């Protein structure tokens, strides 16, 4: 009885300490993370419709100098080396981009990438001369070649949207752009993403990816306009690669704890037996 009372006191003290140094201290240090904004409400909402054939032509005229669409056999006029020399970053392949990012973000982005991404030094020149209609054609072309969102994995999305800047070295993914150019462009080499799932909370990642400026004001990571599904898949992927043994751990844990509970039962029985012989 007395032992249980002592155990209760110790438990209460330990729990108070734990709450103080973990949830409470974290809250005091980092504040609450605002919810992510995948609707990009600051950009005008638009329906993008158009004709894929016309879009393809427009794409070849306006975009293919820098971007490839491997899904449709279009390669960029500019090779990677020249591109990274001129822009300090390799322009991404756009095969699946229409399934990855929000359409109205795309529309605003093509006209004025610097303000859509909230990164004034964003390397792609704006094409404000394109009409909404033309952008609609380009979008419907890209949509027609893209794999549907459901078929894209977190890794695919990461590859199209992130790895021109970020490496993921534990997955043997090297950033497509040479780090020394990225350093010139972004003021720093973007961090490796191998352990990001452990270094940051999920809520932080969601809010950061949907709008980096909210979490790191003045940061040089651009806002990328990901759809909610895309961001969630990328985050799940990052969590997964940072903690690849989660399932195994949870399963093994049950076995170990089960074994220990049995052990505790046995040792208790033994103790009872020995102590009952005492007088």
């Amino acid at each position, binding site marked *: 009885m007395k032992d249980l009372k002592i155990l209760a006191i110790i438990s209460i003290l330990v729990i108070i300490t734990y709450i103080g140094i973990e949830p409470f201290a974290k809250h005091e240090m980092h504040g609450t993370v605002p919810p992510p904004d995948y609707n990009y409400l600051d950009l005008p909402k638009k329906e993008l419709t158009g004709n894929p054939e016309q879009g393809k032509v427009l794409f070849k005229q306006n975009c293919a100098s820098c971007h490839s669409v491997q899904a449709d056999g279009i390669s960029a006029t500019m090779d990677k080396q020249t591109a990274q020399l001129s822009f300090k970053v390799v322009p991404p392949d756009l095969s699946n981009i229409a399934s990855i990012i929000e359409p109205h973000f795309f529309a605003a982005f093509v006209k004025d990438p610097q303000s859509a991404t909230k990164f004034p030094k964003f390397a792609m020149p704006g094409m404000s001369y394109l009409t909404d209609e033309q952008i609609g054609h380009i979008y419907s072309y890209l949509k027609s070649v893209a794999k549907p969102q459901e078929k894209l994995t977190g890794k695919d999305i990461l590859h199209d949207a992130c790895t021109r800047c970020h490496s993921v070295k534990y997955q043997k993914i090297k950033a497509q752009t040479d780090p020394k150019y990225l350093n010139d462009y972004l003021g720093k080499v973007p961090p490796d993403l191998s352990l990001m799932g452990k270094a*940051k909370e999920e809520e932080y990642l969601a809010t950061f990816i949907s709008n980096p400026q909210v979490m790191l004001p003045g940061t040089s990571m651009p806002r990328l306009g990901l759809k909610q599904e895309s961001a969630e898949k990328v985050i799940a992927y990052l969590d997964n690669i940072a903690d690849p043994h989660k399932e195994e751990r949870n399963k093994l844990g049950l076995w170990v*704890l089960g074994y220990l509970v049995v*052990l*505790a039962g046995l040792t208790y029985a033994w*103790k009872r037996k020995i102590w009952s012989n005492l007088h």
Partner: protein
Amino acid sequence: MKFIDWLDERLAIRQLMKVMLLEYYVPKNINFLWSFGVLIMLVLIILIVSGIFLLMYYKPDANLAFDSVNKTIMMDVEFGWLFRHVHAVGASIMFLVLFIHMGRGIYYGSFKPPRELVWLTGYFLFILMAATAFTGYLLPWGQMSYWAAQTITTLFEKIPVIGPDLVIWIRGNYIVADATLTRFFALHVVFLPLLLIFVTVVHLYAVRIVGSNNEDGIEIPKEEKKKKGIPFWPVFMSKEFFVMSVFLIFFFWLVFYKFDFAMDPINFTPANYLQTPPHIYPEWYFLAFYEVLRGFFFSQNLGLIAFVLSMLLPMFLPWIDKSPIKSGNHRPLFKIAFWIFVLDFIFLTVLGKLPPTGLYGWLGFVGSLVFFAFFIALPIISRIERKELERGGNKQ
């Protein structure tokens, strides 16, 4: 049977068993707080075993350390993650059980004669464990590893005359760097554990000679030990095994499902000497002492002196608290002081992690003063108790 006889002739094994186990009597009026010594030994063994496994893949090199831990051990090696979680959670829990073990000693007056050496060797173990944890925390070479080591080693700079040279000597470089990592590695895996094991043996030997204290703090004369006590083996240990298995349930629950508290997220970013993280704090078990250091926010020198005092004062308890009454159960005034001290220690621990600005700075100062007030109050309480005893005759 034959083999035992053979051994007995050469190693006096029977005699040894008698002295150490069968005819060693533990008082009856002790509670499960007296199990924590054994729990510490259990955790120490867990740490050593898991540590040896980690050592098989760990690379003590500033360029390799981070990946050897976070990739090789955590991802590639079969059950490497298990050993790392066990080791990290083990280090954390070691301090939990140590603090409880020490708190038990303070509350029941176990540091008083004739157990001064038990206390002193114990305290030395605490300092050694702190050094082991501190050197070990640098090994993963993450941001928090790096900056905690950088911050704490910088403290030595304030020591008069030799300070600046001493810091460089400890680091082996002007900043924490590869040389620091390698020497911390040497200390963490060889020197400190060896010393720990050696001092543990002395500690246990000292306990064995003077015997365990008890809840009432009244020594049992030698002749009555057998009558009033219970034999260490198997009676005491049968309870101990039960306590151990319950403890292991808690421990492995932490290892499998709640290990986050022992793995700071910031440490999953590799060390970068150009980028200081916004918040630098040590592991939770150093937070209270760290807060005493920061508590004197108006003077770094004062803070440093307070920090050293806070780490060392408890060592001198046998000479600070000389009340003839041992157990806190029979000391109403001491009881109050003790619980204020415990709550203050928790208060300081929590504050140690918070940013030391505004109100938190002042609270840290107050908390630090309360910490020291305990050690000032003890001689006074002892005086009062001594006077009362003299007046009230042999009420106790």
